[in-house]
């Protein structure tokens, strides 16, 4: 079964989905790709962002995206705090690889359980005017529920990219994992820079969480489902490359959508991870890696 309309629809859906994946992965690209911190709790922070959006939306009817924006600084500070613990406990002891990983694993569980204790395990959703709307371009339907997160995601990318490439601190973050020496020559304190970078990484999860809950209903343990996806994207991107993350997310989104449309949706996740495995085996530096 193949028609041009179907192909176009699949591509559009894939691009929109990819845009959303990109938003969820952005913070990890910074933390994991650039700072070399294996924050496996990243999706859990995203879910935390979703619940903040849910709480403000259900209690005061606030727009989830605005809530996400408003809470970005709060999440930034949480990220800074988390990095301090991480640094003091692991990085300073030159002990981050295994134990750091285990640490974030534990953090993931604590966030998840904390959310269950507060909100229970029921599925939560948000209300917003753009949820449930859609329009058509030719025969291709474009749901605003997907389009709005897609656009927000692009803006997020643009902001982070500009910050990283145009400001002193941003460039320092990009440099910190590659070349500590150069960083010291720039007279920047690597710990402070990494702290800033990790803060930004976690900061993005406030908004990413808001986008997530716009797209699907959530419950606390749903974050686990995205661990594979976000790491796949970060690796596929070539660690630390922000444009690469966007492209990798789109590739994954489109691949899933095409497979779901033309082959059988139950193979979609295997395809995504199959791509990851192949990438790891044959091009571990990723699409945009050096």
């Amino acid at each position: 079964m193949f028609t041009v309309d179907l192909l176009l629809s699949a591509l559009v859906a894939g691009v929109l989905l990819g845009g959303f994946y990109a938003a969820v992965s952005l913070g990890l690209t910074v933390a994991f790709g650039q700072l070399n911190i294996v924050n496996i709790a990243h999706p859990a922070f995203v879910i935390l962002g979703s619940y903040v959006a849910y709480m403000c939306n259900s209690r005061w009817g606030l727009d989830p995206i605005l809530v996400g924006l408003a809470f970005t600084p709060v999440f930034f500070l949480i990220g800074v705090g988390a990095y301090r613990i991480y640094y003091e406990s692991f990085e300073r002891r030159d002990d981050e690889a295994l134990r750091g990983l285990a640490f974030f694993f534990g953090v993931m569980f604590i966030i998840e359980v904390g959310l269950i204790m507060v909100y229970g395990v029921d599925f939560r959703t948000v209300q917003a005017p753009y949820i449930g709307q859609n329009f058509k371009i030719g025969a291709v339907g474009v749901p605003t529920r997907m389009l709005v997160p897609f656009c927000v995601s692009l803006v997020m990318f643009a902001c982070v990219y500009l910050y990283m490439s145009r400001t002193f601190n941003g460039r320092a973050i990009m440099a910190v994992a590659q070349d500590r020496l150069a960083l010291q020559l720039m007279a920047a304190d690597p710990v402070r820079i990494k702290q800033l970078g990790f803060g930004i990484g976690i900061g993005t999860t406030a908004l990413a969480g808001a986008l997530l809950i716009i797209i699907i209903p959530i419950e606390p343990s749903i974050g686990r489902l995205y661990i594979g996806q976000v790491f796949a994207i970060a690796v596929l991107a070539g660690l630390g490359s922000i444009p690469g993350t966007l492209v990798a997310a789109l590739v994954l989104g489109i691949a899933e959508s095409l497979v779901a449309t033309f082959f059988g949706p139950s193979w979609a996740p295997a395809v995504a991870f199959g791509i990851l495995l192949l990438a790891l085996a044959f091009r571990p530096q990723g699409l945009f890696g050096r």
Partner: protein
Amino acid sequence: MRIDAFHVTALAIALLGAAVTIFDLIPVNKFYFFAGYVVLQYVVLATAWNIMGGYMGYVNFGTAGFFAVGAYTSVVLYNLMKAPLILMIPVSGAVCALLGLGMGYLTLRLRGVFFAIATLAMAIVLETLIVNWDYVGGATGAYILRSREIAPFGDYVEFLFFVMLVLAIFAVTVARWIERSKMGRGFAAIRDDEVAAECTGVPTLRLKLVATTVSGFLMGVAGAPFVLYVGFVEPSSAFNLVYAVNSIAMPMIGGATTWLGPLIGALLLGTVQQVATVTISSELNLLIVGGLLVFFVIAAPEGIVGLVRKWRGRGR
């Protein structure tokens, strides 16, 4: 291999296990066999994980994948020929050893976290394959009707307990042997610095393949009796993330550089979980694992074994 106090103790525990399960030497409530089975299963998994993770520093997030492949190999054998458990265990082990070898071959050029992520991806790909494979029940799951009794153990679950006890002793013995052999020192060199290890003559790729194979084998044998224990298996329970979490948390809590670490970690955390399941019965159960894990990695990087060692060191 020299015979020492360890081997004597291991044999004694095995005999005691046999005495309890076969001859009902000491009256033991059935529940302890059920709970004990689960704890011992974690001893095998944690020990297997530690061969890669603790000795060599390669974190495997895919424990559940190996475990489930072990379990599903049993399902296949059962569907094919109603194979007995004694056949399921070595075949499951072999299949998972091959899987480990293959995975190692594909991914071991990857350092550190990339390897970890690859194992996670592998578990998901495997789960998708099983979900779409109707012969083993696909997403619907598969039943194995175990017999009620088996000679000479009587109750089938006592038999399963004994089998898992033997597997746990086997796994720990293998891990201990590796640790103390030239191979184990090679593993430690790889963990500390892979490039330096290679440049001092350690065949790193070969050793890594040995580790993935052995580790895979042990995870596979741990999964083999699972279907008989539960009687019913479906992908989401066989590929449960809990196995991955526990197999990481247990060695980390016990102490990842020695065979004793995963053993203590599994006995402790496994028992706490079994107790918590029937006492606390709430989210706290998960919180315990998460909290202990975070606490130990921050406060006691060498785990319980490290704490004891430090404490004894100070006493001297």
